[in-house]
C-alpha cells in the first residue's frame, strides 16, 4: 500500500470527481470532496515522511521503468509542495460549504465540487510527476477546471475573467509545450531526470537550447503570474467565488513556481541557467512586480482585488529569492512559497467570511466591521501583519531569509528594495484595519460573526501563520534541504 502512495495521491481525487457528478447532491458532493481532501492531506504527510526518512521515491506508472514509462518521482521539494497543496485543499473544503451554498446557484454546487476535485488532481499530479509531458497534461487538467471554477462566480464579470484566463493560460501552457518540444528534439527524452542528465553535455550557447529555455520561462511565468504577465490574475481572483480564490491563490501559482524551479534547477541546472542571463531578467521583473503590484494594491477599493495584486507582489518575492541562485535565496523562495500560501489563504478566507455576512468585500461596506465580526477581522489582521512581515508571523521569516540572501550576494540595494516594498504592504493592510476597527458603521445592521464551520478553518490558517512564524524548524528545515538539492544539482 505505502509503495503506491504517490499514485494514490493523484488517483483518489480523480476518481472521486465523477462520483460528485453522478450523485448530483450538494451535501454529498461536499462530503466526498472533504473526505478526499483529508485523505490526500494524510497521504501527502506520509509521503513527506517517507521522503525524509528513505530518500527519493520513484514510482513507475504501470510498471514501465523510466525513462520509457511515466515516472512519479517525489523528492523533498515536491513532497513539500504536495503537503502545501493538499493541506490548503483540506482547509478550503472544510471551510467551503456555507460559503459555496451562498455564492453559487444551488443546481451548480455539485459541479463546483467536481471541478474542485479535478483541479486538486491536476495540481497534485503536476507536483508528483517526474515526466515533463505528463506534467503538461496535469497542468491542463488543473487549468481547465480552474477556468470552470472561476466562471462560477456570481458577478457576470467572472465569465470574462475566466475567458481572459483561459486565453492567457492556454498560451502559457502551449509555450511550455513548445519549449518542451525543443528539449525533446535535442535529447529525445521527456523524463525530467533524464533530461537533466542529457542536457549536462549540451553546449549552453546552442540556439535551440536557449529558445527552449525562453519558451519554458515565458510559459510558466504566465501561469505563475510573474509581473508583467500577471494581467489575468486580478480579475480572476476578484470575481471567482471566495472559496475558489482562497484555494487558487495559495495553490495554483505555487505549483507553477514549483514547476519553474524544476525547469530551472533540475532540468537545466544552476550553471547552465546562470550562463543564459535569465536569472537577472527574473530578478528585475520580480522587483518591478513587488513595487508596481503593491502600489496598485494600495488604490484598490475591492479587497479581493487588493489581495490579488498583493499576490502578484508576493510572487515577486518568491521569484526574487529564486533568482539569487544561492541556497539561502532558493530556501527563501521555497519558504515563502509555503508561508505565502498560509497567509494568503487566511486572508482570502477572512474575506470569504465578510462576503458571507456582508455580501460585499468593498472597503466602503466594511466600516466598523471588526465590532460585528471580531474573529474574522482578527484573522485578517494576523494575515495582514504577516504580509507586512511583522516579527512572530511567517512573513517575517521569509523576509529575513530573503534579506540575508541579498546580503550574502552582496546586493545591498536589493535588500533595501525588499524592505521598502514591504512598507507598501503596510499601507494597504493598514488602510483596511483602520476602516474595519476605527470607523463607525455607516448604517445599523444586524451583521453577525461568520458561522463556526468557517471560522475554525480560518483560524487554523491564521494560527498556522503565527505558529510557523515562531517555530520554523519544519518549514525552514525542509526548505533548506530542498534548496540544497536544487542548487546542488542532484536531480
Amino acid at each position, binding site marked *: 500500500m505505502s509503495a503506491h502512495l504517490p499514485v494514490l495521491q493523484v488517483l483518489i481525487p480523480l476518481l472521486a470527481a465523477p462520483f460528485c457528478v453522478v450523485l448530483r447532491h450538494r451535501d454529498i458532493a461536499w462530503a466526498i470532496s472533504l473526505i478526499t481532501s483529508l485523505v490526500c492531506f494524510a497521504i501527502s504527510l506520509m509521503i513527506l515522511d517517507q521522503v525524509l526518512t528513505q530518500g527519493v521515491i520513484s514510482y513507475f506508472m504501470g510498471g514501465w521503468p523510466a525513462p520509457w514509462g511515466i515516472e512519479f518521482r517525489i523528492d523533498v521539494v515536491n513532497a513539500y509542495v504536495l503537503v502545501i497543496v493538499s493541506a490548503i485543499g483540506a482547509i478550503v473544503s472544510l471551510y467551503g460549504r456555507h460559503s459555496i451554498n451562498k455564492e453559487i446557484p444551488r443546481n451548480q454546487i455539485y459541479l463546483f465540487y467536481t471541478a474542485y476535485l479535478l483541479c486538486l488532481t491536476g495540481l497534485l499530479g503536476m507536483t508528483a510527476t517526474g515526466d515533463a*509531458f505528463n506534467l503538461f497534461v496535469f497542468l491542463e487538467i488543473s487549468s*481547465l477546471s480552474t*477556468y470552470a471554477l472561476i466562471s462560477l462566480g456570481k458577478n457576470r464579470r467572472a465569465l470574462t475573467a475566466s*475567458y481572459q484566463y*483561459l486565453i492567457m493560460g*492556454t498560451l502559457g501552457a502551449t509555450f511550455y509545450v513548445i519549449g518542451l518540444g525543443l528539449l*525533446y528534439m535535442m535529447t529525445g527524452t521527456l523524463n525530467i531526470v533524464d533530461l537533466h542528465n542529457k542536457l549536462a553535455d549540451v553546449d549552453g550557447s546552442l540556439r535551440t537550447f536557449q529558445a527552449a529555455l525562453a519558451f519554458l520561462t515565458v510559459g510558466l511565468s504566465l501561469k505563475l503570474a510573474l509581473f508583467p504577465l500577471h494581467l489575468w490574475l486580478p480579475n480572476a481572483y476578484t470575481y471567482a467565488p471566495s472559496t475558489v480564490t482562497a484555494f487558487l491563490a495559495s495553490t495554483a501559482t505555487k505549483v507553477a513556481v514549483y514547476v519553474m524551479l524544476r525547469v530551472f534547477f533540475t532540468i537545466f541546472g544552476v550553471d547552465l541557467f546562470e550562463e543564459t542571463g535569465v536569472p537577472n531578467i527574473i530578478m528585475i521583473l520580480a522587483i518591478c512586480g513587488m513595487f508596481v503590484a503593491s502600489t496598485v494594491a494600495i488604490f484598490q477599493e475591492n479587497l479581493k482585488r487588493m489581495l490579488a495584486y498583493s499576490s502578484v507582489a508576493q510572487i515577486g518575492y518568491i521569484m526574487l529569492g529564486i533568482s539569487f541562485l544561492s541556497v539561502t535565496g532558493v530556501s527563501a523562495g521555497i519558504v515563502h512559497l509555503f508561508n505565502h500560501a498560509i497567509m494568503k489563504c487566511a486572508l482570502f478566507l477572512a474575506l470569504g467570511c465578510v462576503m458571507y455576512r456582508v455580501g460585499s468585500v468593498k472597503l466602503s461596506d466594511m466600516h466598523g466591521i471588526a465590532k460585528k465580526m471580531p474573529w474574522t477581522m482578527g484573522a485578517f489582521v494576523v494575515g495582514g501583519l504577516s504580509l507586512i512581515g511583522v516579527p512572530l508571523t511567517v512573513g517575517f521569516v521569509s523576509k529575513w531569509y530573503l534579506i540575508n540572501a541579498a546580503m550574502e550576494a552582496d546586493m545591498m540595494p536589493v535588500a533595501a528594495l525588499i524592505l521598502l516594498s514591504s512598507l507598501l504592504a503596510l499601507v494597504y493592510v493598514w488602510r483596511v484595519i483602520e476602516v474595519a476597527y476605527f470607523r463607525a458603521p455607516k448604517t445599523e445592521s444586524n451583521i453577525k460573526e461568520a458561522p463556526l464551520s468557517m471560522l475554525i478553518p480560518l483560524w487554523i490558517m491564521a494560527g498556522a501563520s503565527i505558529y510557523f512564524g515562531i517555530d520554523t524548524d519544519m518549514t525552514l528545515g525542509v526548505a533548506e534541504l530542498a534548496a540544497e538539492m536544487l542548487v546542488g544539482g542532484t536531480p
Partner: protein
Amino acid sequence: MEALDFISPGLYNYWIVIFLMMAGFYIVIARGNLVKKLVGLNIFQTSVFLLYISMGKVQDATAPILGEGFDTFSNPLPHVLILTAIVVGIATTALGLSLVVRIREAYGTIEDKDLLELEDETS
C-alpha cells in the same frame, strides 16, 4: 553555405510552424471577437502539433508498424504526445466556446471593446 542552412528547403516544415504560430498568436492578440480569439488560439496550438509531428519524422523511414522488409521507423512518441495535446486542445476550445456562450447571454455581445465598456459601467 552553412549560414544559409536555416532557409534550406529541408527545414520548410519549421517555417510553416513558425508562420502558423505567429499568425495564431497575432489573431489572439489583435482580434476583438471572442470566437475569433479562440480560432487564433487553435491555430497557435496546431502549429505546435506540427512541430512535434515533424520532429518524429526520420529520413527514409516508414510508419512505425512492424512488418517485413522495414527496419527504420519514424518515432511514434511525438504522435502519441500530440494525440494527448489534441484532446487537451479540444477540451480547451469547448470550454472556451461555452464561456463565450455564457458571456453572450450575460452581456449580449462578444466583442472585446463592447465588453470593456459594459464592465466599466457596472464597476
